[in-house]
């Protein structure tokens, strides 16, 4: 619960600092959920743009244009959305780290672990993806590498959700769960069933769930459990 009001000159006593930091954290939780809502929405739209937009274009007068123009517009849209989603990701991860720092300082603790390093995660993903492609010699190599990167990034996402929130809100679990399920079902579909459309279905469904999470997080920030409860 945020204090009723902070008066103009209420001289802060030393022990007020921790109570004030707790107020900042309580506020931050609702604020951070709204920021994560934007993150889910942006990634949801970006993933849909990869898989769905080319088919949607076919239903519009856009389909009458030469193939080269269609391809250029679709690719530009993908690049712009990916850039926006990556920028939002870097910002939200930084914000989550700073919130984590404030929380553990409020508890009088020092960080025991270093912030997650994206490059390390990506390196693991590329090595794993390469190993899987070599072992399966699959024709869907690009999909497999992409799925490995996304699966490893899901661990990165879970780690940041855990650092940003205590407890992790409902939409965080749903978003991370949808992501993991999409990565696993995509693998199963490509490696075991050799069915590339399953890949599209898995990630398309995850993107729609992420859009739902964005709407939920944006409008359900009032029913918050207090920080640390």
């Amino acid at each position, binding site marked *: 619960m*945020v*204090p*009723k*009001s*902070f*008066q*103009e*000159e*209420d*001289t*802060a*006593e*030393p*022990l*007020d*600092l*921790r*109570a*004030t*930091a707790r*107020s*900042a954290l309580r*506020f*931050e939780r609702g*604020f951070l959920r709204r920021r994560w809502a934007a993150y889910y929405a942006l990634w949801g739209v970006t993933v849909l743009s990869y898989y769905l937009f080319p088919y949607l274009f076919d239903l519009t007068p856009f389909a009458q244009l030469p193939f080269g123009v269609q391809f250029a517009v679709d690719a530009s849209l993908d690049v712009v959305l990916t850039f926006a989603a990556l920028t939002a990701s870097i910002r939200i991860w930084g*914000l989550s780290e*700073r*919130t984590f*720092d*404030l929380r553990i*300082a*409020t508890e*009088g*603790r*020092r960080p025991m672990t270093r912030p997650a390093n994206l490059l390390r995660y990506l390196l693991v993903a590329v090595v794993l993806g390469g190993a899987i492609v070599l072992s399966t010699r699959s024709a869907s190599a690009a999909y497999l590498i992409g799925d490995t990167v996304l699966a490893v990034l899901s661990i990165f996402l879970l780690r940041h959700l855990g650092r940003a929130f205590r407890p992790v809100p409902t939409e965080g679990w749903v978003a991370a769960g949808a992501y993991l399920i999409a990565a696993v079902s995509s693998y199963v579909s490509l490696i075991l069933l050799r069915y590339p459309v399953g890949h599209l279905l898995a990630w398309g469904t995850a993107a729609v769930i992420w859009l739902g999470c964005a709407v939920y997080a944006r409008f359900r920030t009032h029913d918050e459990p207090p920080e640390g409860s």
Partner: protein
Amino acid sequence: MIGHGPGPEVRESLAGLGEQFAQEELRSSARILIMLSLGVNQRLSFSTLLELTHCAKGSLSYHLKQLEGAGLLQTSMVFTFGGPRVVADITEKGRTQYRGLIDELRRLPGPGEHSAAVPS
């Protein structure tokens, strides 16, 4: 039996806090709250700060002026899809001040440590 009183770490922490709160610009829990929140978010709009502090508009303007005067933040007008907005950005000096507050928070004795320092 008389105890030893607060240990050197606790004394150092309280001295640090004393220094922080001796500064005019941090002699208000609203201003500390603004600095802690700005330290995390780097930039906040005036309306978000109103929501955070529950201050009246005039009070918030006063707090922001005090913090801006001390060089801890910078206010400016930005144009967004929702119209023009006043935003506050933390400055480099503000970041240093924020890190100081975080260090003090870490060193602040918890309730358990407090009672341990009380004479038995």
